[in-house]
């Protein structure tokens, strides 16, 4: 162990005196928290920064990194405890939407850098018999929230026309996240009433099994009516993994 290096890092963490008499040690100390806070707020947590303010998010990240010193050489990996840290500070009570968006941002990142989908070659509409063999891509996440997380996610879109009014509801929302190609991430709102159907797909049910289970449940007419459109959307965005 190098005493110099230990003292240097402790100085960066404000836990030790400046290690030497020269003037510019503070350049390193200033960058220690600022650099990752800025980089993360401009990348993985971009929409959180848009909705809650970049300065606010960066100060929150700096507080987090000050308390839980980064240990992983890859910056984004240091965010792994950010959500639980927020919960430990009771941000989930005062700002549940902030916690939701942080968790969603990391979930999307994990799906994005996960295995790419294997392209399926389908000609035309799948026959009914084909449905038996369709399962959801393994690299997906069904994101469940107690709040309007999808509406918030859309509100934070950096390319959104901010002159257009946006409705953020107050109902719980579920989002299905998967990749339609190596470069395209789908963040799909699960229509209200189709959560249990999507949940069944998410745990590995074939499409025909999920449909049968859904119809046997107490699904109401309006949910049944929107099911074909939802399945068509999954189809058009390459949500399926197997088609044997």
């Amino acid at each position, binding site marked *: 162990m190098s005493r110099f*290096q230990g003292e*240097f*890092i402790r100085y960066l963490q404000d836990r030790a005196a400046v290690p030497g008499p*020269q003037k510019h*040690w503070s350049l390193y100390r200033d960058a220690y928290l600022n650099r*990752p806070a800025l980089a993360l707020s401009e990348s993985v947590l971009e929409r959180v920064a848009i909705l809650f303010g970049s300065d606010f998010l960066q100060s929150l990240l700096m507080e987090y990194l000050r308390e839980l010193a*980064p240990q992983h050489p890859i*910056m984004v990996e240091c965010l792994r405890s950010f959500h639980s840290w927020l919960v430990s500070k009771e941000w989930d009570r005062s700002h549940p939407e902030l916690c939701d968006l942080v968790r969603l941002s990391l979930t999307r990142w994990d799906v994005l850098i996960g295995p790419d989908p294997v392209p399926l070659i389908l000609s035309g509409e799948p026959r009914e018999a084909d449905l038996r063999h369709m399962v959801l891509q393994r690299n997906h996440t069904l994101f469940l929230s107690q709040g309007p997380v999808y509406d918030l996610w859309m509100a934070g879109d950096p390319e959104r026309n901010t002159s257009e009014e946006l409705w953020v509801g107050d109902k719980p929302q579920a989002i299905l996240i998967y990749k339609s190609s190596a470069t395209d991430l789908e963040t799909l709102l699960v229509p209200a009433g189709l959560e249990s159907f999507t949940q069944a797909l998410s745990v590995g049910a074939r499409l025909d099994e999920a449909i049968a289970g859904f119809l046997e449940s107490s699904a109401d007419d309006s949910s049944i009516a929107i099911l074909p459109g939802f399945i068509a959307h999954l189809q058009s965005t390459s949500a399926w993994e197997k088609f044997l």
Partner: protein
Amino acid sequence: MKTSDNIPFLGAGLRPHHYPDWKEMAALPILEVLSDNYLFQKGGPGLHHLSELAERTQIVLHGVGLNIGGHVPLHADYLKSLKDLVERTRPLLVSDHLCFTASGEGQSFDLLPIERTRKEWKHIKSRVHEVQEFLDRPLTLEYVSTYVESDANEMRQSEFLNALAAETGCGILLDVNNVFVCAFNHGFEAWQEIQAIDPKHVHQYHIAGHAVHEDYLHDTHAEDIRDEVWQLLRRSWQTIGPRPCIIERDDAAPFPTLWAELERARRILR
């Protein structure tokens, strides 16, 4: 459609906002990849675009998180992931920096200066061997910008790197901007320092911009390259010889700005 006009040895840092620009070019220069931005990934746009570009041009991998100067064990998963990336891209060179980035106290995302003592040299030498054995190829280590120097230093960076290269077979990444920045910050002569570097160990050049402050220079990669640094590169090129030379630019500069710097490099190094 732009072409690189066949610039031998010349290249630029690959940044995600420039993927479309590079991909539409008929001929590509060498592209340097910030390897840390592609590690611990199984798929996604980064690896997708990188794999496509690696089919068309030579890649050099450049990392920041190896922690070659650190005293905690080398991060095994980091090394494994780096090796996977090496196999995926078949790079011309694999480099990182002569610095430390982590101690037992935590990780920094900055390039922190080491103590350039005989004792540290032996320690880093063994770590270079360890990395090279694991990757089964030479490592190249960059001359870094520093803003403070340990009072315990016994060697200049040039001397430290020469000895490491001679002993381990690793290469030296001569960042002429970093030498310029260090020379100003620590009061020595940049060209003298470059002349002290053994040409046979130089595997690659970097050139970049820096910010000028009242009493120090800051290596930001976010400004245009200064004339004095271009001149330093030209002299190095003439003295040491041609090597892969990468222009680093880490701000959100549009592609034409980066391209203009590549064109300038081509004129200067012709």
